[in-house]
């Protein structure tokens, strides 16, 4: 676990030149039995994918998503 923690610290520090790591925040899942270690493991997985370029960023989450007029629900 110490090696993972050290690796996580190194990953968080490895940002673009001229920048420094300033903050991290999490959106936890619904499994209330998750331990702190398990959560940390997921954070490590997520940070690795982002910092090491293992996943490509997406241009759009929902651009052009079909819209609905709220008036439909006000009658």
């Amino acid at each position, binding site marked *: 676990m110490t090696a993972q*923690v050290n690796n*996580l*610290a190194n990953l*968080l520090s490895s*940002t*673009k030149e*001229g*920048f*420094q*790591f*300033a*903050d*991290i*925040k*999490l*959106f*936890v*899942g*619904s*499994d*209330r039995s*998750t*331990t*702190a*270690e*398990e*959560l*940390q493991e*997921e*954070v490590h*997985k*997520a*940070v690795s*994918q*982002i*910092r090491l370029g293992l*996943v*490509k*960023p*997406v241009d*759009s*989450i*929902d*651009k052009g*998503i079909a*819209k*609905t*007029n*709220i*008036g439909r*629900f*006000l009658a």
Partner: protein
Amino acid sequence: MTALKDMIAAFRGRSEFPIEVEEVRDWLIKFGMQDEITFYPIEVNPGRLRGLVIRDRSIARPYAESLWMLSIGFWHKANPCWQRLVCCKEMMHAWDAQSSCVDNIAELKALCENLSSSLDMKDLDEAVWSDHLAVYKALAVLAPMEQIELLRKNYENGKITTYQIALLFRIPEVYVNDLFNPIYKRLVDCLVEGKYLSRPHNEPATA
């Protein structure tokens, strides 16, 4: 610093929904909150972690404001409603006070411990507090109170369902009933006016 209420005001008067995540991102970049916001579809166990944000700040430059980068990870197989809420919630951390920032490994370990334990108000620290509040800030943007009030009568008399409301705003259905709770309305008023942003509930706000 441009406030959450300015963002909400920018989307006021809408009749077409949902508000796109890109609109929120573009507003934050345009009005100087953040300089770069990037979304990454990641592989995680969503029961444990739905998403996260890493904030990086430019190293201090004389006579220049800091630049900020947000890298937001969201579970790549989440349905669009969850992807949207996760991304929007993480963008809300653009407003986090310095005192709630988690910028070292010891604080991150503490955050993991606090978020994974059962909710005990006396153990809330600013980082945990800001995480919980950011979800409600995101909902305040994606499902504006102005429109919630328009829908209230038909929601209360059962003419529209929580599923229909979730689909209108493209938010997870599990949050819809919360939106019509009078306590939620008071919380949004507090968040929008900037009160209680960085304090536990039992500490008085400053004037």
